[in-house]
């Protein structure tokens, strides 16, 4: 009964979405207030219906209703309850429903935080989101019904993939989808602006906080996924340039470009049509990513053959959204117009360079991700494009990006001068160069790549500090607190996010430069020295979990003869599927991790209880994720800026901002 109610709610949601997608646009076009006012209640109702449907599916999972096919295939009564709940989005159908929940949730949020927007803008924005909702609801109902019944009901479920039975996997998909889908708001604002043919600084100020929040969630989502891969896959890597990862990274790169381009549009009223194009591309890539990952295209192009209806629907939907919005863009971009001019050395020009580099880097990742699919589709053989390609292309393109990142925030709008930048930053440059040259020696082994990476990180960090200090010093009067308060939250957010990049680069550089990876066979009682630490294997003991049995190893970690702690990696066998799972034990520290995972028992005649094991020492690896969280934190702080909450005064572009800031 409950699944049928959920199914019914989805059908109703589709009807509501249709009304939400059509009526307000007609209203905005004919200037009919009654039709426009349909948008808000429709968006809220749609959210309630989708949330109800999602609740029904979650209920079916939590209560292990195996008469629902989706539940029978992706859950099991022996799973702990929080994994049964998380299994709701562990399947193709469930994850699409989560997508839909996020989309309607964002639309509902727009209705709640848009009191200051003109009615026609809200009507158009919500209509665009309604139309996207129509596409997804139709996809759910016609090709991927999450509530399809199974007759006869299964006595027991097939189990959730053991790799997904992890706390990180409980929060990773919702975070990632919040980000992915959040770009739909920026997209809707862009399309609404194109429809109206009016786009100004006020538009950018409406659209900025939404874009930044979506970007923050996407950042956290990607970081969680990366951390999950690090400790669950048992390989100790944090990024594999796997197509599934790239699918989330593409909208992130475009979204990063969009945030910066929006800053220029808001502050200087320029880059307008480019900003709109980026908003369209960012959301299109979110769609592409969702479909690449969820349709099975990535595992093989031929997976389309398994359910042609799904593949065809996906391609049609992508074609309509991308083709339609680009056509609208081509027709209306002129009306949106360009903007004020700026000098060749100015904050605008640095941000433009940022955008060019980010977009080109995104294009190179996109090419590497799609190329094998295209070759396969053309029947020209099977190839793979691995990490060496991405490393060879991505790093050279992003290094200048990071270098310029230090200059952008300190350069003046419109016209900056190189001699002035040199005076302000020469000490920062000197400190960064000298420290970067010396630091690798202190760390034990000099290498040009480590020195270069550290230079970039230090350069960004020191220049950001200089930017802060100089801004505070240029305020003439008042206490330090008053000076601090004189700057906007979004400016501090920007500084924090940039420091996050520096922290991230430190992590990447030092892991790459100094990690030690040893695969070896260990007998019980045997000790091995890795990077200054001693690991002693004390054998394994069997143990039972709720839905698995495990062998738990014991490794004593000691330094200079002093026992630090015992690490307990696990090798699990999940009872239902019989699938093994490796759980690494990690000694996490500020300056690096010691990482052990069990391979398999080595059964020789000679040694009893010996195992093959993997011991890694990963210096500064946690800085990678710390950097990501700092970036997201910076974004959240930026969104808290009070100017986004102030009612915009009509016709007072560019900015009726209370704080005297030239903030990012």
């Amino acid at each position, binding site marked *: 009964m409950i699944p049928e109610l959920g199914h019914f709610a989805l059908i109703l949601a589709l009807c509501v979405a249709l009304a939400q997608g059509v009526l307000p646009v007609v209203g905005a076009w004919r200037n009919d207030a009654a039709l426009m006012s349909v948008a808000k209640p429709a968006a809220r109702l749609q959210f309630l219906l989708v949330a109800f449907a999602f609740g029904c599916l979650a209920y079916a999972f939590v209560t292990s209703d195996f008469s629902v096919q989706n539940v029978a295939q992706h859950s099991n009564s022996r799973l702990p309850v929080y994994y049964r709940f998380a299994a709701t989005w562990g399947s193709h159908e469930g994850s699409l429903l989560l997508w839909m929940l996020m989309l309607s949730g964002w639309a509902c949020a727009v209705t709640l935080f848009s009191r200051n927007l003109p009615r026609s803008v809200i009507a158009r924005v919500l209509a665009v989101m309604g139309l996207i909702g129509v596409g997804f609801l139709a996809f759910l109902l016609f090709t991927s019904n999450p509530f399809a019944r199974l007759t006869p009901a299964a006595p027991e479920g097939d189990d959730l993939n053991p790799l*997904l039975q992890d706390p990180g996997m409980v929060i990773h998909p919702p975070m990632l989808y919040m980000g992915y889908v959040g770009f739909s708001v920026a997209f809707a604002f862009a399309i609404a602006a194109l429809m109206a043919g009016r786009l100004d600084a006020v538009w950018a100020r409406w659209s900025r906080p939404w874009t930044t929040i979506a970007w923050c969630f996407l950042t956290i989502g990607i970081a969680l996924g990366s951390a999950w891969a690090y400790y669950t896959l*048992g390989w100790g890597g944090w990024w594999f340039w796997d197509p599934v990862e790239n699918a989330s990274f593409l909208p992130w790169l475009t979204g990063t470009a969009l945030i910066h381009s929006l800053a220029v549009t808001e502050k200087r009223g320029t880059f307008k049509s480019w900003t709109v194009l980026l908003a369209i591309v960012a959301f299109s890539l979110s769609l592409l990513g969702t479909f690449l990952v969820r349709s099975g295209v990535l*595992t093989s192009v031929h997976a389309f053959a398994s359910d042609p209806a799904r593949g065809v629907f996906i391609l049609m939907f992508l074609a309509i959204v991308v083709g339609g919005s680009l056509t609208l863009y081509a027709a209306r971009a002129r009306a949106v117009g360009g903007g004020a001019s700026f000098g060749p050395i100015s904050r605008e020009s640095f941000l433009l360079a940022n955008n060019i580099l980010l977009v080109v880097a995104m294009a*190179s990742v996109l090419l590497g991700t799609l190329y094998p699919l295209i070759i396969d589709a053309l029947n020209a*053989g099977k*190839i793979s494009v691995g990490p060496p*390609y991405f490393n060879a292309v991505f790093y050279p393109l992003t290094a200048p990006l990071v270098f310029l990142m230090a200059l952008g925030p300190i350069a003046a709008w419109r016209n900056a001068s190189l001699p002035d930048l040199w005076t302000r930053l020469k000490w920062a440059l000197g400190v960064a160069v000298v420290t970067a040259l010396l630091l690798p020696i202190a760390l034990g082994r000099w290498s040009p790549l480590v020195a270069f990476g550290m230079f970039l990180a230090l350069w960004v960090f020191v220049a950001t500090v200089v930017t802060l200090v100089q801004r505070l010093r240029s305020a003439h009067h008042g206490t330090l607190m008053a000076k601090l308060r004189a700057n906007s939250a979004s400016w501090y957010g920007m500084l924090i996010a940039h420091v996050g990049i520096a922290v991230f680069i430190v992590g990447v550089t030092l892991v790459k430069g100094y990690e030690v990876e040893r695969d070896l066979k260990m007998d019980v009682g045997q000790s091995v020295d890795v990077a200054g630490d001693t690991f002693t294997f004390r054998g394994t003991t069997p143990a039972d979990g709720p839905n698995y049995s495990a062998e738990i190893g014991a490794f004593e970690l000691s330094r200079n003869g002093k026992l630090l702690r015992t690490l307990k990696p696990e090798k699990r066998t999940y009872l239902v599927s019989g*699938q093994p799972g490796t759980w690494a034990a990690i000694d996490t520290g500020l300056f690096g991790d010691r990482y052990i995972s069990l*391979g398999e028992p080595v059964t020789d005649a000679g040694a009893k209880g010996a195992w093959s094991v993997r011991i890694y020492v990963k210096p500064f690896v946690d800085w990678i994720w710390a950097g990501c969280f700092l970036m997201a934190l910076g974004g959240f702080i930026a969104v808290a800026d009070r100017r986004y909450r102030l009612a915009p005064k009509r016709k007072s572009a560019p900015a009726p901002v209370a704080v005297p800031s030239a903030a990012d």
Partner: protein
Amino acid sequence: MKARHRRLAWIGAGIAVLGVAVALVLSAFQSNLVFFFTPSQVIAKDAPQGRAFRIGGLVESGSLKRDSDSLTVHFKVTDTAQTIPVVYTGLLPDLFKEGKGVVAQGSLLPDGTFRATEVLAKHDENYMPPEAKMAVEQAHQKGMMTMRSMRESDKPSP
């Protein structure tokens, strides 16, 4: 007029960055594209000597042997028509099993053994690497040998 020149300069800069990117992509493609070959193709000497490539198929049942004093393993990859011996040093992925699909990356040794530098793990036990599936299907189509139909699920990997 001046604004137009400036715009041209920016477009020029954009094209320059794009040019650098294209050069990087081409050179990276040249050296880093990894092609895939089935065991039959390797036996037919289609695969490159001295360059990394991938092979895929099934791990032949009963072929897995471990060296006693190191982590070196030997196994055979088959597409049911032809078989290639593989040697690999390191830990095998969790889902590596005899009779199951596998994809390995590495290069051919002079004696015809494939030295794998990487044995690929997949996320899901029901999932057959598409390359491995294709290798078996191709051999199957050529009618070199009949084989029980292989069940394969289209579950997407997470």
